[in-house]
């Protein structure tokens, strides 16, 4: 079983990457999309601060964010910015899976709620949902309906 500190550090790293990525995405968005990106950026900041405090309470040092992150693809317009935001939320969801598996029940709860927030934001950006956010369970049984388009 992953230790609590290791799981918290992994979630912290994902939050730091999301903060950086939302900064890039937000620069290519306008109107309500930019407002949503700002809310996402703020939410990830708050989560990062909460995770850093938890790590410190356990006697460890929160790992500092990187100065820069490699983007998964070029971001040059609103469509790619939305795709980046969705990708960031996918990464955050995966990272919190480790926290859900630790022994501490409060950390499990925190991780599960963070996964829900990230999955909801991913659904907003992508306009679709996943059957198993964060998990890779469908490699052998992908359904054509496994990814759900939202109604316009």
């Amino acid at each position: 079983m992953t230790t609590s500190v290791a799981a918290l550090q992994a979630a912290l790293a994902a939050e730091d990457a999301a903060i950086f990525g939302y900064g890039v995405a937000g620069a290519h968005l306008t109107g309500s999309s930019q407002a949503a990106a700002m809310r996402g950026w703020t939410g990830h900041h708050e989560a990062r601060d909460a995770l850093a405090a938890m790590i410190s309470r356990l006697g460890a040092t929160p790992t500092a964010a990187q100065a820069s992150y490699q983007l998964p693809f070029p971001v040059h317009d609103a469509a790619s910015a939305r795709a980046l935001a969705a990708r960031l939320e996918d990464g955050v969801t995966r990272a919190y899976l480790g926290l859900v598996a630790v022994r501490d029940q409060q950390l499990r709860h925190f991780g599960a709620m963070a996964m829900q927030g990230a999955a909801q934001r991913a659904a907003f950006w992508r306009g679709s949902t996943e059957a198993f956010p964060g998990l890779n369970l469908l490699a052998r049984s992908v359904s054509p309906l496994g990814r759900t388009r939202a109604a316009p």
Partner: protein
Amino acid sequence: MPDIVPRRRILLASATALPLLLVAAGCRSQDVFAGPDPLAGPPPLGHDVLTLQAVIAAEEKMVELYQTAVVADPQALVRTRMLRSLLAQHEQHLAQLRARLVEPPGQASASPTARPAASTAGPPSGPGPASTDLARLRAAERASAASLVRRLATVPPALAQLFASIAASDASHVTVLGG
């Protein structure tokens, strides 16, 4: 030949005396033989099995709710397509949950009514298909997500991850349903 009768008497006396000795000593068969008592029936189901059964029952209700919603609104094609897609994801949840359920022989064929109540895990019950609407589906998704998170504390890590992922999926369904 003359010693056959005494041996029979000894055997009969022993067979008669052993239960009496056990009773006198306050012993039951479980105390004498270590391990499960073959006469006591199947052992009680473990906590994980009971939890999975309850979650599966709740997911079955969710699938039924979506099936009802799809049938109730066949004219709204865009909405129906979305509902069918969400239904497919709930069916995937159900398949993964069932794949993790290992019941003792004789238990798997139990009727759904013999399973533990889904309690708050299931979608809220309501009137007939005509009244099924998006608000009801959103409420059911929220209730399902909350129930799964409440169960996290008492299940093994791998099951906790599956429950958390399904809860996240349920929460994202609320988003695309307009919540």
